[in-house]
């Protein structure tokens, strides 16, 4: 009798187990945590497009869920855990502020795979991913140096984190190759998304003589101001050409789709590992919008620069890199090390600004 019950129990367990693994093999549940609304036309919108691209590619092998407008405060840990508890085996948290909450939940659910965008903390089941956006910034610098008549560029910056600082540095290094005397003015708006503030900053920069506006914030407000003033601007996150058909030179487009597809495929195949992924133009995580509103020679130069970065013959942070004081920054190889760029906390020569709080 006892043996019979054991067999029955084992059989039941086996049924449950096979049923479970069968359904798991059929569909991978993938969850996304978004900072903004999916319709912000900026950061979150691009992640949403990435999710849609993944769904298109993998079809019914995946089932996806997203939670939008998740504040980086007390709510995010619960939202991430809600996804973990509801059978999502791969979870992308798409903003820096989710770093500690993601880590906490990842420790609690060691079998679930977590991917955190733009952070620096990881775990055996938590990887990070981000784009080498500075590559696109360098191309924008090259273009801006050619296009500016006043020789002054305006830069709307969000937070003095390494990603933003390396973007500012790459911009001026690129611009110096086409105009050695180029000036770069920076306004810190302390926000990622605030159309009002971004527009004010764009107006202030234009008033100070900047005739090419670039931004590390997410709304198209600055593009619209530049269009009104009849000066040039670069888009951010997505192709913003419809906000400035005669204004946009190009835009750095965040293209998360290939990465999300790759990560989901790895999870389906059982080969997923927690890694620190940092993809750029070559891997198409960073994509340049069409080069518009510029003469053909500038366009050709931009395309040449892009091809050189993709081909590996050009690195925006090629040594020697001079600091703001004119002294060369410590360099071990031919270019700055990835760690030096990921943790960048200094300006290069030519930036007319001081890093806030430093």
């Amino acid at each position: 009798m006892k043996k019979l019950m054991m067999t029955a129990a084992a059989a039941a367990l086996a049924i449950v187990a096979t049923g479970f693994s069968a359904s798991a093999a059929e569909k991978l549940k993938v969850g996304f945590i978004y900072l903004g609304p999916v319709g912000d036309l900026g950061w979150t919108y691009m992640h949403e497009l990435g999710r849609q691209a993944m769904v298109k590619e993998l079809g019914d092998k995946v089932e996806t869920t997203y939670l939008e407008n998740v504040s980086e405060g007390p709510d995010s840990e619960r939202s991430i855990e809600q996804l973990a508890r509801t059978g999502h085996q791969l979870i992308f948290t798409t903003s820096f502020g989710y770093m500690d909450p993601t880590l906490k939940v990842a420790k609690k659910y060691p079998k679930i795979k977590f991917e955190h965008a733009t952070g620096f903390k990881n775990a055996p089941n938590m990887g990070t991913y981000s784009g080498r956006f500075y590559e696109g910034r360098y191309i924008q610098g090259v273009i801006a140096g050619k296009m500016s008549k006043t020789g002054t560029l305006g830069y709307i910056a969000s937070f003095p984190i390494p990603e933003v600082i390396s973007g500012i540095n790459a911009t001026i290094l690129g611009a110096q190759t086409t105009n050695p005397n180029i000036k770069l003015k920076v306004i810190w708006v302390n926000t990622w998304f605030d159309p009002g503030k971004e527009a004010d900053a764009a107006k202030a920069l234009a008033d100070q003589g900047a005739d090419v506006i670039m931004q590390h914030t997410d709304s198209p407000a600055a593009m619209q101001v530049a269009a009104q003033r009849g000066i040039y601007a670069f888009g951010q996150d997505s192709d913003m050409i419809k906000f400035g058909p005669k204004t946009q030179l190009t835009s750095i487009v965040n293209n998360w789709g290939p990465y999300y597809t790759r990560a989901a495929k790895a999870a389906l195949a059982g080969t997923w590992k927690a890694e620190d992924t940092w993809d750029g133009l070559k891997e198409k995580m960073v994509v340049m919008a069409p080069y518009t509103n510029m003469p053909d020679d500038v366009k050709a130069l931009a395309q040449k620069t892009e091809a050189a970065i993709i081909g590996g013959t050009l690195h925006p942070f090629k040594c020697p890199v001079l600091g703001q004081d004119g002294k060369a920054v410590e360099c071990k190889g031919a270019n700055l090390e990835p760690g030096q760029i990921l943790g960048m906390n200094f300006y290069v020569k030519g930036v007319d600004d001081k890093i806030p709080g430093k």
Partner: protein
Amino acid sequence: MQLVLEKRAERSTKIAILSPLLAIALTLVTMSILFAILGKNPVAALIVYFVEPLTDSFTLMEIAVKATPLVMIAIGLSLCYLANVWNIGAEGQFIMGAVCGSFLAVVTNGTDAGPWVLPAMLLMGAAGGALWALIPALCKVKFGANEILTSLMLVYVADLIMDYLVRGPWRDPKGMNFPTTASFDPVATVPTLFETGRIHWGALVALIVVALATVMLGRTIKGFEIRVVGAAPRAARFAGFNSKRLVLFTFAVSGALAGLAGIIEVAGPVGVLQPGISPGYGFTAIIVAFLGRLNPVGILIAGLFLALTFIGGEGAQISMKIPLDLTKVFQGILLFYVLACDSLILYRIRLIASQKKAAQGSIHGTA
């Protein structure tokens, strides 16, 4: 033929009890229609919203976590509103409480400071919130400044002060320039109640606050004073109650409670001071206070109910792919119906044949 709102001779107690229930019923009907328009099964959606979160220990605890700051702030606000004093700036008092309490957490970070840190932080948080609230109170008492405006404006000032601190002097040296302090040490953290889950001792503090407020309003002279000054200022003056001192008192108490909620939130579920510590708790608590009919127990229920809609809304996003915007619509509709139904306590709807009669001692309405 015309619909008019006619003033009742006296408050209808029956309607006073029925009104919130009627409001909830109307909300459910409206929401069902909205769900149906979106092509979702209304019954299934309502179950996801209201029943599922109550059937699971994780979501139950999360409801408590979410309700804790809402209830604490709303209790304080209810004292103000009962006394006819309009503190709209609880959000700022919440932030200043968090800032003042965090000061200790930041300066003792990484040292071997003892267990005195957390209690001291809570005290400083309450004091910070109270002092911040006393600014509009003093402006009202001394200069007759409108407290609705001054308390609201100070929210943005508080927000910017916090912003400055976490970007500058208090920034985590190892935090890659991100605007956040270092993670608080264990001695500066509000402990959780159980091994698993995020419910923390702050939830018990909120319950104690509810109990104290019930006793104070129901059984003490101070509670009586608050009610009289609010309901009948002239009678209060004859009774010798000092309405100016009461303005200071209610603002200080509500500020202290909001500040305490702020430091508990930062030292509890968040664990660092950073922008975005409050997803609008100070403003949502105004809804909670009125939904709870300015009664402590009512506020406790209203706080839990509103928290339930947040958690249920999240569940609906996950399992039924219902957009978050609908949860916000839902909360708005609920408040709308609560206020609309409340008018039935003092007025009754009547159908009147001609306009002549309607003019006699009744108020025209579009109801």
